[in-house]
C-alpha cells in the first residue's frame, strides 16, 4: 500500500483535468439554467423561468417542438432504414462465402469519414445543376426524379436521414453479424427439423435471440440521432435550411447559445442543454431496462 503522497502523484493529474474541463462545466450548466442573465452577468435566481421561456417565448416555443419532431423523425427513419438494412446485410452475409470480408469492409468504409465531410460531399453530389446524382438519374431516363433534393422542404430531412444511414449502416451490420455468430447452429437445425419455413425460423428463433443486439443498436441510434450536429450543419447550415425543415435540437442549442440567444442566451441555452440531457439519458435508461427485461424472459 503506497503512501498518500505517492497516490496523489498517480491520481491528481487525471482528477484535475477531468474535474476542471468535464465535471465543472456540466455542474455549472445545471446551475446556470436556474439563474437570470443579462449578457454574462447573473442578475438573480430565476427558478424555472428559463425552462418556461423555451416553451412560451417566440421563436423558441415553435422551434423547440419542430426540432424535437425532426429528431424523432430522424430516429424513426434511421431505425427503419439504416438498422433494418443493417440487419438484412448481416443475415445475407452470414452464410456468404467469397468476398464476405471485402463486402463488410466496403459497407463500413463511409463510417471512417468525418460526418462533416459526408455532409459537404453529399451536398455537392446532390446539387441540382452540377451534381452527379441528378445527372445519373437523367441519364437513366428518370428526369422526373432529378429533384432539388436539399432545396425542397419535403425532401430535405428524408435526404439527411438517408445520407446518415449511408454513413452508419456498417455499424448495425457488424453488431448484428457478431450476434448472429453467437447463436448456436442447433437452434436453426431444430427449427428446420420441426418443419419451420425460412421466415418462421427467422421470426420465431433468430429474431428473439437478437433482442440484446437490437437493444444496443436502438439505444446507440437514439443517442446518436438526438445529438446530431456536424452532418446536418454541413448539409443545411446552422438554421436547418430550407426554412428550418431540417432543424434539429443540436442546431437549436448552438443557435440559442452562440448565435441568436441575445442577452438571455446563457440561461436559456443551459436550460435547453439540461432538458436534452434529461430526455436523452432518461429514455436511454428506460429503453435499457426494457430490453434487459425482454432478454430475461428469453432465458
Amino acid at each position, binding site marked *: 500500500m503506497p503512501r498518500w503522497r505517492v497516490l496523489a502523484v498517480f491520481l491528481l493529474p487525471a*482528477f484535475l483535468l477531468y474535474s476542471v*474541463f468535464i465535471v465543472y462545466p456540466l455542474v455549472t450548466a445545471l446551475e446556470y439554467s436556474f439563474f437570470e442573465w443579462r449578457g454574462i452577468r447573473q442578475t438573480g435566481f430565476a427558478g424555472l423561468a428559463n425552462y418556461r421561456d423555451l416553451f412560451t417565448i417566440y421563436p423558441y416555443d415553435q422551434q423547440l417542438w419542430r426540432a424535437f419532431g425532426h429528431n424523432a423523425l430522424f430516429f424513426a427513419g434511421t431505425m427503419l432504414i439504416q438498422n433494418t438494412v443493417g440487419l438484412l446485410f448481416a443475415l445475407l452475409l452470414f452464410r456468404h462465402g467469397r468476398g464476405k470480408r471485402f463486402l463488410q469492409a466496403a459497407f463500413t468504409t463511409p463510417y*471512417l469519414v468525418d460526418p462533416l465531410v459526408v455532409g459537404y460531399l453529399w451536398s455537392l453530389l446532390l446539387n441540382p445543376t*452540377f451534381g452527379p446524382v441528378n445527372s445519373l438519374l437523367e441519364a437513366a431516363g428518370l428526369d422526373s426524379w432529378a429533384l432539388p433534393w436539399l432545396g425542397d422542404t419535403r425532401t430535405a430531412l428524408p435526404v439527411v436521414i438517408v445520407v446518415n444511414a449511408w454513413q452508419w449502416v456498417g455499424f448495425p451490420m457488424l453488431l448484428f453479424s457478431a450476434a448472429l455468430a453467437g447463436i448456436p447452429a442447433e437452434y436453426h437445425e431444430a427449427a428446420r427439423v420441426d418443419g419451420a419455413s425460412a421466415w418462421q425460423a427467422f421470426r420465431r428463433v433468430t429474431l428473439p435471440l437478437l433482442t440484446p443486439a437490437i437493444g444496443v443498436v436502438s439505444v446507440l441510434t437514439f443517442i446518436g440521432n438526438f445529438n446530431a450536429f456536424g452532418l446536418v450543419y454541413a448539409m443545411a447550415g446552422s438554421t436547418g435550411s430550407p426554412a428550418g425543415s431540417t432543424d434539429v435540437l443540436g442546431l437549436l442549442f448552438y443557435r440559442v447559445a452562440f448565435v441568436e440567444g441575445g442577452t438571455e442566451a446563457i440561461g436559456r441555452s443551459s436550460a435547453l442543454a439540461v432538458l436534452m440531457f434529461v430526455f436523452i439519458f432518461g429514455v436511454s435508461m428506460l429503453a435499457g431496462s426494457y430490453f434487459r427485461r425482454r432478454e430475461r424472459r428469453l432465458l
Partner: protein
Amino acid sequence: MTARGRAPGRVAVHLLLWGYAVVALLPLVVMLLNSLRPTSEIFTTPLGLPASPTLDSYARVWTEASFSTYLLNSLAVTCGAVLLGTAVSALAAYPLARYDFAGNRVLGAYFLAGLMLPIRLGLVPIFYLMDSMGLIDSLLGLTLLYAASGVPFCMFVLSAFYRSLPGELDEAARIDGAGEFRIFGQIMLPLVRPALASVMLFQFVPLWHEFLYPLVLLRSDEKFTIPRGLSQFFGEYTTDWSALFAGLVLATAPLFVLFVLATRQIIAGLTAGMSK
C-alpha cells in the same frame, strides 16, 4: 429446397450485396476523381473520369486555403490530447485498479460517470471557463479539453487491463525493493502497452472529427483544425468545386492512412485483452 430452386435467390442476393458495395464506395471514388478534374470539366460532365488528371486544385487548397496549417493544427491538437489523456489515465487507473485505499470506489465511479454524461452540453460553461483562463482561440485550450474528454473511456479500459495482471508481479518487485514508480514504469506500463495503443486509436477518431468545440472556441484562421477550416473553406470557395473536392479528400486521407497502418495494431490490442 434444392440447389436449383435456390439459384435465382442467390443471384439476387449477390446483386444486392455487390450493388450496395458500389453505393457505399462510389461517392468516395467520385470525391477522389473530381478532385483531379478542373471545375469546368466537373460542371460540364458531373460524372466522368478525369480527361487529364491534375493536382492543381490540391496546390490551391494546400497553400491558398491554408489546409497545410489546418492539418498541422489538427495533428498537434489531436496527438497532444490523445497522449496527454492516455498518460494521465494510465497513471490514475493503476492505483485505482490495484490498491484498496479509502475512497477508491467513489473515485472510480466519479471517473466512470463521465462515460454516460454528454459532455457537449457543458459547452456554454466551457466557453466562459476558457474565456476566464485566456484560452479562447488557443490550441492549448482545445488540447486540454480534448484530453479531458478522453479520460473516462481510458480509465474504463485501462483499469480492466491493470486488474487482469497477476498480483505476484508487483509483489515480487516490491520484495526486491523496487519503488512504486519503478514498478509502474518498468513492469505495469509495458504489460498494458497493447491496451494503450487501442485506447489511443479509439480516442483519435472522434477527436479528429470534433467540430462543435472548434466552431465555438476558435476564432482565427491560423488556429483552425481541419473540420473547422473545412466549414470556413466551404463558405469561401463555393464555386471552385475542384478545390472543394480536394479539400474533402485532404480532410479524409489522414484517417484512412492511420487506419491502414493501425488495423493490425488494433486487432492485436483487442485480442490481447480477450486472451487474459
